[in-house]
Structure formats: structure tokens, C-alpha cells
């Protein structure tokens, strides 16, 4: 029998809150868990719902969350000392390979990759962190990546910081320097990363996001092709996605209807 995944939420107190930008906050909790980079928790705010959130650090439990909708806004209103529920960790993590790796984040995708960078640096891997965002304000955690000893490549749509253009364009020419690529961000960016890595023959893993209800492989809401993003993913090797009908093209809305990305 598998471990019971979907048990009653554990309640933990917020120990500290750090403002990463106007819209992004990092919450540190009085809890620790065993988890791998790329895994997520179902975070519960009593009365305000429950959402999947990537783990930024498991010990102490740390979550970096952008204010994008009603749930994340409710979380941003929580103060030090408030109780937040969580279940997990869920999902398949990144699997580490190679000595020299490139991490590519689109916007808030930097949070789970910070956890991954911590692990690759602990293993002594050369780690380059590439972050793309619309504007300089969307480039989060940059100092923290420097603190881990990562080199960084920054890209913004308007060029107000770093390379002007997509982060994939910023890294394309140097892709062959790396043993592996790990990416997290909007699916169209992930699809561009996959296409680039398929073309260049560089191994890559991408962390995919879907609307989730249960979070642990029972409701079927997060189906992508014949895969359940919550349990078979959220991290997929791009080789698993070569023949995908949905990846980069279709997602599912809150009712489960397949819709264009």
C-alpha cells in the first residue's frame, strides 16, 4: 500500500515574512519536512481555500508566493503568528544529473528552482540561474541565487534589466555548455525551452502547472494527455513530452474543459 498522501492538513505558524517585491512574499513556518526540489504542498487557509504551492525550502518550511488571485491575496494578508494548513509533499521532483546545469525560470518559477539550486550547489555543480520576466520587478530572488554561488542571466521583455527579450533567447547560444536544463514558469516558456533542448540535444526537465483540485491523483482534474500532473508530474523529462498533444497548447479550466493555452 502507498503512503497515505491526502491526510488531514497540518497547521503551522508563520515565523517570518519577507517582501521579495511589491507582489511577492516569502513565508517561513515553524515546520520542517522531507521533500525534494520540484515537489509541492497543498496549502490550506481555513475559509479561503486550498492551492498547490511549490516548496521553496523544506527546512524550515518556506514558501514564496506571488499575489495573483483571491487565495494568494488571502495568504498575503496573513501575519506572523497566524496558522496556515498544509498537506504533502506531493508530486514527482526534479532528478539531478550532470555537473554543470542551467536553471531557467519564468517569473515566480524562480521559487522552486531556488530549492533546486541549493541542492545542485551542495553537490558542487556549476549552476547558472536564468530568470526572465516582463519587467525588472518580476526578477525575484536574484540576490539569494548569488548567495548560493550561482551565476545569473537576467532577461526582461522591455530590457529594463539584463537582456532585452525572452529568457530562452538569452541562453540559447550557450546551451551546449550545460549537462542538463531545469525549467519552471509559464507553459509557453517551458515549451520554448523544450523545443530548444530537443533541437540542441540537451537533457531537460520542466515543471508544469495545472488547475488542481485534489492534488494527489484521484480527481483527474489536472490531466495533461494521459498523465496526471499532480502525481506523474509536476516535473516531466522533455523526452516524455515529445508526442504530447496538450503540452504547450492546451490546459484545462476549473470545470475540466480542455482549452487553448
Amino acid at each position: 500500500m502507498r503512503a497515505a498522501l491526502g491526510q488531514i492538513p497540518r497547521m503551522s505558524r508563520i515565523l517570518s515574512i519577507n517582501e521579495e517585491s511589491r507582489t511577492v512574499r516569502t513565508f517561513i513556518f515553524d515546520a520542517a519536512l522531507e521533500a525534494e526540489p520540484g515537489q509541492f504542498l497543498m496549502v490550506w487557509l481555513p475559509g479561503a481555500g486550498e492551492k498547490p504551492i511549490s516548496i521553496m525550502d523544506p527546512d524550515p518550511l518556506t514558501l514564496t508566493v506571488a499575489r495573483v488571485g483571491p487565495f494568494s491575496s488571502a495568504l498575503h494578508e496573513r501575519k506572523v503568528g497566524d496558522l496556515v494548513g498544509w498537506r504533502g509533499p506531493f508530486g514527482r521532483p526534479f532528478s539531478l544529473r550532470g555537473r554543470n546545469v542551467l536553471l531557467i525560470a519564468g517569473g515566480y518559477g524562480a521559487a522552486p528552482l531556488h530549492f533546486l539550486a541549493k541542492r545542485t550547489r551542495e553537490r558542487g555543480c556549476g549552476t547558472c540561474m536564468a530568470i526572465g520576466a516582463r519587467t525588472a520587478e518580476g526578477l525575484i530572488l536574484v540576490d539569494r541565487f548569488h548567495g548560493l554561488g550561482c551565476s545569473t542571466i537576467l532577461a526582461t521583455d522591455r530590457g529594463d534589466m539584463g537582456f532585452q527579450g525572452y529568457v530562452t533567447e538569452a541562453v540559447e547560444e550557450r546551451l551546449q555548455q550545460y549537462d542538463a536544463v531545469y525549467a519552471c514558469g509559464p507553459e509557453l516558456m517551458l515549451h520554448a525551452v523544450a523545443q530548444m533542448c530537443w533541437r540542441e540535444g540537451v537533457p531537460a526537465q520542466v515543471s508544469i502547472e495545472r488547475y488542481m483540485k485534489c492534488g494527489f491523483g484521484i480527481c483527474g482534474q489536472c490531466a495533461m494527455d494521459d498523465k496526471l500532473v499532480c502525481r506523474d508530474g509536476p516535473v516531466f523529462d522533455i523526452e516524455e513530452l515529445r508526442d504530447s498533444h496538450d503540452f504547450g497548447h492546451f490546459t484545462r479550466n476549473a470545470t475540466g474543459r480542455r482549452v487553448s493555452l
Partner: protein
Amino acid sequence: MLDPAEIDLSTEICGVSLPNPTVLASGVLGLSGEVLARIARAGAGAVITKSCSLKPRIGHPNPVVVDYGAGLINAVGLANPGVEAIVEEIRLARELTRSLGVPIIASIFANSVYDFGTTARYISEAEPDLIEANISCPNVEEEFGQIFSSTPYVAAQVTRRVKASTSIPVIVKLSPNVPNIGEVAKAVVTAGADAISAINTLGPGMLVDVETGTPIISNKVGGLSGPAVRPIAVRCVYDICRAVKVPVIGLGGVMDGRDAAEMITVGASAVGVGTGVYRRGIEVFALIVAELRDVMARLGLASVADLRGRGLPQATER
């Protein structure tokens, strides 16, 4: 002892053949055509779609499913993309499973007797092998009032309407939350039901976080499934099989081959698996099939027909 590999596990519901008696229960994973096909390839004898309605539904906010130790409590709130989208998913599943011989069962529900008929007519366009009318979801009572299967009279009304709207055989899914499930079974069969599935989830039940005093399921209450409800499910299937002669899909807490054999012993023709998918993964169907073979070999029973109904009182009279 019989050779487990020689045992004939095929079974039949209303003339539709299943390669083995395991059935993916409605509401578990059955949203996407590709996932339905994957479950068929993983060894299920039939697959049932998520229940669909005329219009798309978002369902209840999260949390919608919690493992309470002895099983799951859920109130998904019948989230579904609408019958039109499910018709496409069924067509896709059909295309992907053509060579497998695994029937596809479409589950429908509606908020009125009239809409049950319209939904049945729409879903028939996908040509599912069977239609399951879900008249027993306990999680939308506030919205729909009393569930349709709570009285024999209303259950029969829905059944008649669905039957009049399709030429595809109709399974009616019953709730255990009634004083006499045999009476409801008789009423729906008299109204034309070709088969029955039972049980839907039990309850509703409730879980509360003691630190904040908040119910954990967003709907506050949810239906129970899993090992804790199995004895009630077995009793319900037993009562139904004594009351009526139509094929029954028995479900509720079936985790392994022994549990499947128990359901068939009290008269079920097939056995639904829901919480078992959570506990043991998609491999649960192949596992149950292998375990059921072992149980039947030990008992010297060469086919599902030989096992079925051994636990019913009239078995000794026949």
C-alpha cells in the same frame, strides 16, 4: 487447486462483455479520454466517466478530498466540463481503446428529472456502451434539495425519464443513505433500470480542524468512501440482489481481490474501484484481477458466474 491463469474472469452487464469484473468508479480520474484509455490499458474491465451535467460546473472550492485514515471524505461538488465536452472525451477514449474490448460507461446527473432526460439524450451521441444515472451524489443537497435516490418514487421518476431518452442500457446508481435500499432498487427496476450500481458515498460526514475550529472540506460535509464503508456496501449489494434480478456493479471500499470476491459473492456482476485507486495507484485493477484469480482458484471456482451469488440465501435453494 485450479490454475489461476485458467479462470474465466469475463462478466457481462446488460449484454455488454467485460474482460474482468473491475470497473473504474465514477468521479475518480475519469475526466480525460486519454486517462480513461490509460486505465483501460492498466487492466480495468470497464471505465466510468466523471458524472457530467448539461452545463459545465466548477464544483466546490478546495479542499475537496481528505484521507481520514479509514478512507476518503470528498465533496468535489460534481465539477465537470459539461456533457458536450464529455462526449468528446468519450469519443477520444473509444478511439484509443478500440482494440481492448473495455466498455466505456458514461455517468450523468442533472438537477431535475427533465434535465436527466436531456443529458441522457446528449450523452448517447457519444455511443457509450452503458449509461450510469448518478441519482445519489450526497454533496449537492443544499443546491438540489434531497437527493433523487432518497425515495423510491423520485428514483423511479428519474429512471423512467432517462430510459425514455436513450436506447442505450441504463445503470442507476443508488445511495446507501436510505432506510431500505432494496425498495429503491425494486422501484428503479420496475421503472426500467437495466442494471444497478451501489453504493455511492456514505454520509455525509464531517472533519473539523481543532486548532481553528474550521470544517476541513470546503463544503463542510462530504461523502465517505474506502475500507470503513465496505461492510455497508456489501450489505447494500446483498439487499439489492435479493430484491431484484438485474446485474449489479458493487462498489464501496473494495481494495483487493478478496474484497472483490466478497462483492461478487453477494451477487454483484462487476466491482467498482475508487478509493482503491488512491490507495494502490492505477495498478490496482491488475492487482485486484490477479488476487481475485488466486481467491477463486483456492475456492475451485472456474468463472465469475460460479462465484456470483454464493452468499445469497436462495443460492442454497437453487
